[in-house]
């Protein structure tokens, strides 16, 4: 059954057709990857799903709900979490606080109860903390719990951002280049985590990634895009051997024909 369904989505910025008629379906429990050269429109597709951008045309449904016109803060409560290509953490807070912020959709207290710090608030804080500790254990972030984001190495920040998305307890997680800028060992670890997310947490993963080794290792299906248009869809092996895809990456004249 498809969990996320994008039908003929497009967004134009002035003359730039960042995404121009892309359709795909992500099945429940699947690891789905989007690949493509720089500026192909991959991150823009993510931004359309998380409603940072409004589509020029097309429709996106998630779990049976039409999210095409939803305000951006109403996307997360449906069960969609994401990371950003350029890491958008809360720099002046600790790792623990950042992960706790990922629990926002699960809060049930209002600000008056928070100011009075009623017993209910404490109970909920404990519950949030318990969930966050599970994430910390999963991603092995124990050593960084109390550290400020601003002083952390790049690799750790990337992991914290994945952790913040996981803390939400989503159904679908969008990972924008989770392995970019990481060492070989670190990206191997990312591959294991993605496997575990699917297998142990029952998550559906939609990822953008340049590292074809990682994509081949974890993805069930791959969508290749270029210039905002879809090029090919299939298993990693199929897409990699597709002539249009190879042309797009090598930049031969066939690129325009695609």
């Amino acid at each position, binding site marked *: 059954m498809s969990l996320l369904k994008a039908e003929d989505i497009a967004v134009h910025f002035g003359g730039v057709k960042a995404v121009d008629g892309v359709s795909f379906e992500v099945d429940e429990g699947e690891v789905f990857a989007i690949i493509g050269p720089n500026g192909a429109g991959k991150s823009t597709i993510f931004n359309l799903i998380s409603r940072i951008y409004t589509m020029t045309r097309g429709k996106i449904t998630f779990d049976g709900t039409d999210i095409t016109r939803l305000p951006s803060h109403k996307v997360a409560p449906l069960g969609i979490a994401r990371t950003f290509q*350029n890491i958008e953490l*809360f*720099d002046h807070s600790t790792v623990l606080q950042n992960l706790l912020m990922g629990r926002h959709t699960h809060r049930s207290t209002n600000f008056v109860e928070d100011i009075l710090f009623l017993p209910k608030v404490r109970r909920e804080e404990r519950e949030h903390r318990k969930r966050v500790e599970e994430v910390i254990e999963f991603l092995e972030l124990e050593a960084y719990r109390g550290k400020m984001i601003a002083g952390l190495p790049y690799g750790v920040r990337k992991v914290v951002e994945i952790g913040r998305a996981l803390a939400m307890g989503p159904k679908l997680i969008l990972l924008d280049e989770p392995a970019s800028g990481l060492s070989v060992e670190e990206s191997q670890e990312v591959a294991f985590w993605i496997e575990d997310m699917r297998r142990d947490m029952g998550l559906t993963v939609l990822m953008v990634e340049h590292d074809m080794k990682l994509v081949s290792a974890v993805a069930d299906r791959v969508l290749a895009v270029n210039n905002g248009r879809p090029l090919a869809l299939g298993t990693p092996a199929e897409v990699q051997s597709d002539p249009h895809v190879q042309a797009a990456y090598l930049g031969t004249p066939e690129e325009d024909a695609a």
Partner: protein
Amino acid sequence: MRIAFKTSYDTDIDFHEHWNNRFWIIALVVVMALLPFIVSEYYLAEVANTLIFSLAGMGLMLLVGHTGQVSLGHAAFLAIGAYTDAALMNAGWPFLIAFPVAGLAAGLFGALIAIPAVRLSGIYLAIATLAVFVIVEEIIILAEPITGGVGGLFAPTIEIFGLSFDRYANLSNFYWLCLVIVVLVTLGYSNLMRSSTGRSFLAVRDSEVSARALGIDVTRTRALAFGLSCAVTGLAGALMGHFIGFFNYELFSIFISINLLLVVTIGGLGFIQGAFLGAILITAMPQIIAILRDGLNATAGIDLGSIPGLDTIIFSLILITFIIYEPAGLYGRWLKMRVWWEIFPLARRDMFRRQKSYLKTERQK
């Protein structure tokens, strides 16, 4: 060096992980409570004034330090608090009702203003809040039957259950009242910051896109922060009115807005403690400068008092020095000193050097 062995999640949820921190806070409150028996009326009044400034500072800290929004118009909310409280009491309402209503009025007005204003940011928000200030000032002058217009208004004596809290006749009582209010607001503020509402403020401050992606309604969160900030500032305004006794619109000038911004910046943005340290510095600075000037006059015979505007210049120089050399504010400086002592003699020279952080581009990827 201290190490906290954490045995329960409550250790992190509670205010202080070290028992000795808790001890110092309690000791401080006890000393503050005993102050009327220790210092003269003159200094007690000064401390009461500092407490009121701390309260207003906390109001602005919530907005500037914890939600990352600027306001040049907070004098307006001080005024709304002061006038509402005084007008209601003049109409026969008891202080115990008029005071919270004054805070509520300032808060609701703030939240109302915030709904359009919070879509703005940076310099635009600063200008919008300045405009609000100008409008409120005009309304105060025009609404003469309630506010006394240009002439001004008397803040009646506070009475609670027959006990007088007159600022002159019963200064100790008035001081204790201020202290209790400040302690309660500080508690509420600290509670807020250790719960999800406070975290959503920080989230909105540090990354709006992320906040949205986590399901935080940015507009609503900012409006809430604005409203709460104005409510606390309104309470401070009400106390300020009682402290001054007789006031008109001139008490709530643009300079008080700027002073409040200095309180939070110099105190340390993003720390509740910063509001107190900033308030102490701002209220004590004119006194310190006066004492230094007199000292210089007596010992070296240099009469700086004859140079007009010198106080203001010295005041400004100290502020500029602070902003350049200690952007983390007084509280940031204190934290560094504390770490230095805790790990003495292991501190290294470059330990507190500001770290370069990774660039965030404008593009939302």
